[in-house]
């Protein structure tokens, strides 16, 4: 009898004496591994105490009247406030203008750094310096540049281009104020986008751009058809992070523009600190949260990289 037939014979006689006992599957199951959960615990606790709890609290406060009952009054007060429309308008306008500007600028900076040219590393350090400065300090620095006796006006007067100082930061010129805020924020916060994009560029293997080059792609075509699509995951992260932070812009605007240019986060501060109405302040905070969520959802939805498109 050949060896090959033996297992067949065994299969023909199931449930009979001599049947091989199945191993005890329960015993063979891998032991539950607690380590990952233990490692996650500190961060989870931190987020729960300092983020989740205050978030829930502000959610409750936003819908609470002074007696602790449920109300929509806070929303009503917020929406009917004279500054609400301006704050919403400026915040959205600010984001629509600053985010694309920063992404384009950061992309150019990241591409320069990624060339690997001699001074590229040096630029990385120079360009990231503003990241280390607090936004309020940055606002004050730019205030001293734009103000009536600031650096720009002094230079303009020295050059004889103007006799009297130009009032960049006045009620009469809200557009100029807005431009000043955009410039200051560009200076301050473009580097964070750049850092993310530099990291993203560095993981794209050189072989891809080389292949594109060999197959006839011009520098523009390489950027458009190879680099940008492969940078999409990083672009998505940068956009989400940058937009969320832009919704929270406050200190820099406050230092530069004061009440000339109201923004949502500034209104929340005003209602909390000046008006001392915690309910409306919480409602503003809630609005910022909802807008950020909606935005993130859009980015995730439309800049999604499918699993099969990854290397």
């Amino acid at each position, binding site marked *: 009898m050949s060896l090959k037939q033996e297992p067949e014979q065994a299969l023909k006689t199931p449930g009979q004496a001599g049947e091989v006992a199945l191993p005890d599957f329960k015993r063979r199951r891998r032991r539950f591994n607690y380590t990952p959960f233990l490692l996650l615990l500190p961060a989870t606790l931190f987020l729960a105490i300092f983020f989740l709890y205050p978030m829930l609290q502000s959610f409750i406060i936003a819908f609470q009247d002074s007696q602790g009952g449920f109300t929509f009054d806070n929303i009503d007060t917020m929406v009917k406030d004279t500054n609400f429309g301006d704050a919403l308008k400026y915040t959205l306008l600010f984001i629509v203008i600053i985010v694309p500007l920063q992404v384009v600028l950061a992309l150019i900076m990241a591409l320069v750094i990624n060339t690997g040219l001699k001074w590229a590393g040096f630029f990385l350090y120079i360009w990231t310096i503003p990241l280390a400065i607090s936004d309020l300090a940055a606002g004050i620095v730019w205030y001293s540049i734009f103000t009536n006796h600031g650096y720009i006006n002094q230079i303009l007067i020295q050059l004889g281009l103007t006799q009297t100082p130009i009032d960049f930061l006045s009620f009469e010129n809200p557009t100029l104020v807005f431009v000043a805020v955009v410039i200051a924020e560009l200076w301050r916060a473009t580097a964070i986008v750049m850092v993310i994009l530099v990291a993203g560029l560095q993981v794209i*293997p050189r*072989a*891809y751009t*080389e*292949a*594109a*080059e*060999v*197959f*006839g*792609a*011009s520098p523009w*075509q390489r950027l458009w*058809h*190879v680099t940008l*699509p*492969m940078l*999409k995951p990083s672009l998505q992260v940068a956009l989400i992070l940058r937009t969320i932070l832009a919704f929270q812009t406050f200190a820099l605007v406050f230092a530069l523009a004061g009440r000339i240019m109201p923004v949502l986060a500034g209104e929340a501060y005003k209602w909390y600190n000046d008006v001392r109405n915690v309910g409306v302040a919480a409602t503003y905070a809630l609005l910022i949260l909802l807008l950020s969520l909606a935005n993130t959802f859009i980015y995730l939805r439309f800049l999604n*990289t*499918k*699993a*099969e*498109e*990854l*290397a």
Partner: protein
Amino acid sequence: MAQIRLENIIKLFGKVAAVNNVSLTINDGEFMVLLGPSGCGKTTLLRCLAGLEIPDGGNIFISDQNVTEFSPRRRNIAMVFQNYAIFPHLTVYDNIGFGLKMKKFSKADIEKNVKRAATLLEVDKYLERHPAQLSGGQRQRVAVARAIAMNPAVLLMDEPLSNLDALLRMQMRAELKRLLQEIGATTVYVTHDQVEALSMGDRISVMKSGQIAQVDDPMKVYTDPANTFVGGFIGSPPMNFLVGEVVQSEGGLAVEIEGQRLPAPANLARMAGQKVTVGLRAENIEAGEVKDGPGLPTQVMVVEPLGSHLLLTTRIGGQSLKVVTPVDYPVSPDQPLWLRPDLNKLRWLDAQSGTLLNLN
């Protein structure tokens, strides 16, 4: 029609010359293999040819046009990369059509060429897939199809088969050879695998330390290596090299190896009294137990059965000699063996420099 001419190419990395004064002419439609161990400069030379590196010295001509400082896209070349470098974010169709799209071909032309290349490489069933959904072998085919879709005058291949498993590599080797014969593009193929080089190339350039050691057709490189490096690099097992001394004896000129004499050709007379290196291939040696005819007394050290034959490592004095025998040859370690080399197939090299002696 594209002839490639490399003239005195030098490429430095820091102070190291990765390519050191290489001149080479590759004829139109020829399949030229650049073969050598890692670090010999073969890939750097190919990258210079592609325009991915600019040489520090020398000139590169494609079809009599000096392209030395041309960017890659102006050279009318296509390339297959070692790691394929097919774009993960594009479908197979868009990958194969990439070069044509960049060169602004019409949609109809792109489709025609993509379909043709995909059919040739049998990836026409996967055109809508992304590379991540393909096996290694299929990705490799897409990389070749992308190059072929361009109808390039010059096709460059950088170790295209090195990431495939042994069986797939052998299959792809034969398939590529047929395909490239069909296309007729001037091909430069970089590999460290001597079997690939021997089986595919019209000619082989064996490289060492940034220089070309020998350029010849595969059989010539195998049977008449220009020096001990080439002989030792090509062939499995590599060529045997025994050091001996040329002596005059009663029967004519002979070479004395470890006290044993073998007849030597008369035109070696000018070397009389000097040391020479004798090169002999393992398959050109006959093994026997009795001492009949000119041969060498050896002792068997290792017996390696390799399926189709036995590979014996034997020793004569302080030198070792590899021999192949039929698989059923009765032999065991430590036994004495009388080896009779085919005297017509001995090669004579300078004992100092290791270069082939000119016996004419």
